[in-house]
């Protein structure tokens, strides 16, 4: 009976950089109600996100995440860009008698900068795809939660600003029930 051994294969030997990029990143759009002109809404949203603990970077507003993950909110283009942590290796079992040939294949692929084609790379692709999809989904939900709270704050401020353009704001009251928030603003015109 053959023995099988667990070996770790560098992930770039099994999947191309383009494929890895596709598996490890995801972008999703979001809407912003245009209560005020677009540039003012963007400013308010940026302010709310920064107040919620996000930080500004060249690419947009970065949401705090786990190490190795990034969630960037591009306020101008209304897109959330997500990047999850890709594993460096793929662990698999190889029979004793195949170890030598597998190692040779890995070395060749590394030397030539190419990928091993076959069952091993297909299996790595499907396992990694499922793992990354779950990781990106959780990251997306976390980023959405931060964005939703910031949008709520943005709308609240935008409505107040809009109301103050109509006349003197005399009273502001808020009430929440279930998932909806009601803001009542009284204006003396």
């Amino acid at each position, binding site marked *: 009976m053959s023995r099988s051994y667990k070996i770790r294969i560098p992930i770039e030997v099994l999947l191309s950089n383009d494929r890895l990029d596709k598996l490890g990143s995801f*972008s999703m759009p979001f809407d912003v109600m245009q209560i005020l002109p677009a540039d003012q809404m963007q400013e308010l949203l940026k302010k709310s996100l920064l107040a919620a603990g996000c930080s500004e970077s060249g690419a947009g507003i970065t949401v705090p995440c786990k190490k190795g993950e990034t969630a960037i909110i591009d306020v101008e283009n209304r897109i959330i860009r997500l990047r999850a942590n890709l594993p460096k290796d793929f662990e698999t079992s190889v029979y004793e008698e195949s170890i030598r040939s597998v190692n040779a294949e890995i070395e060749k692929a590394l030397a030539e900068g190419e990928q091993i084609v076959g069952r091993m790379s297909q299996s790595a692709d499907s396992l990694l795809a499922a793992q990354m999809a779950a990781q990106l989904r959780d990251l*997306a*939900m976390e980023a959405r939660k931060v964005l939703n709270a910031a949008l709520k704050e943005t709308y609240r401020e935008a409505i107040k600003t809009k109301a103050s353009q109509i006349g003197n704001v005399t009273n502001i009251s808020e009430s929440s029930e*279930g998932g909806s928030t009601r803001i009542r603003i009284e204006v003396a015109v």
Partner: protein
Amino acid sequence: MKLQLYPEDILLEYAEKAFANSIDAAVVKHAQYLNRLPRMIEFSEEFAERWQALVKSAVKRFVADTFKLRPFLFDVEGYTKRFTSADEYFWNSCEFSFSQRGAERLYELLMREFIEEEPMFLVATPDDGLILSICTSNFGRYSFPWLCRNRANWLTQALFVAWQQVVIDRISWQYLLDNPAEVALPLREYLIERCADLIIACSGHMRHLDPSTPSGQLVDVVNDLREDGVPLKVSFNQHDFSGKVTTVRRFIASAEKAFAYWSGEGSVGLDDEKFIRGAVQQYRFAEEVREFEQLVSDYLEGRGMEGAIYESIIQNQNSNRSST
């Protein structure tokens, strides 16, 4: 030195301490001699009188501690009036029946170290059951079908409603809602309050559910919104979301049916149906149900959003164009 022990005196001392601090903290003065007492005793007439006096005052104290000056509805010659535990009418409306069986069961608890059998708690009247529940701080031994079958008065039932902990898929006092004709007028309004509190607790539980981890969220929620009331503790023992929602909806349907009966064909006097309708409004039952349903749909929407995001990620992984 010769020491004379009177089991009846020891039992009364034990009962007094148990009423004050529960049996776990009730240690009698001559505890070291308990093993010399008989396993069963025949109570004297003098003891019976002292027992009645003791339990009556203990139960009155317990009622006052539980309900404070909360008013209850009563039918007085066809008209509805409110009375609290400070009013004579309140106490005249119900008769307690304390038998020597309650004393026997408490004696069994006192001697539990030396009697191998568990006390037969169900061999008692509902009011004996009440005092045993107060002494042991455990109101879960007596079910509402048992209490009703044994003709527990409304106040005893109300005390069990107040103190029984609720497990969401076995709401013990739902029996009363399913059999609304068996419920006396004073208990009806209190049940409406309790039903609203239960829905508030369910909404509280729903707010803490995370759509990304739909299973494994078993928690107890304590609703202590009413300063003067006994907090309602609800255990959510069901894993699956839809099972939980179905259970709560079934409870809501039972409650609504009972409220409709009490304010319709089951009304007692000339005007009590107005009070019942008023209580349903006062305790915001319909609003609490709406809030609960809103939270259910928010939760499902969250789960739907999560599903949609997941699907987009999979589509993106399988597409040929760049994702960014």
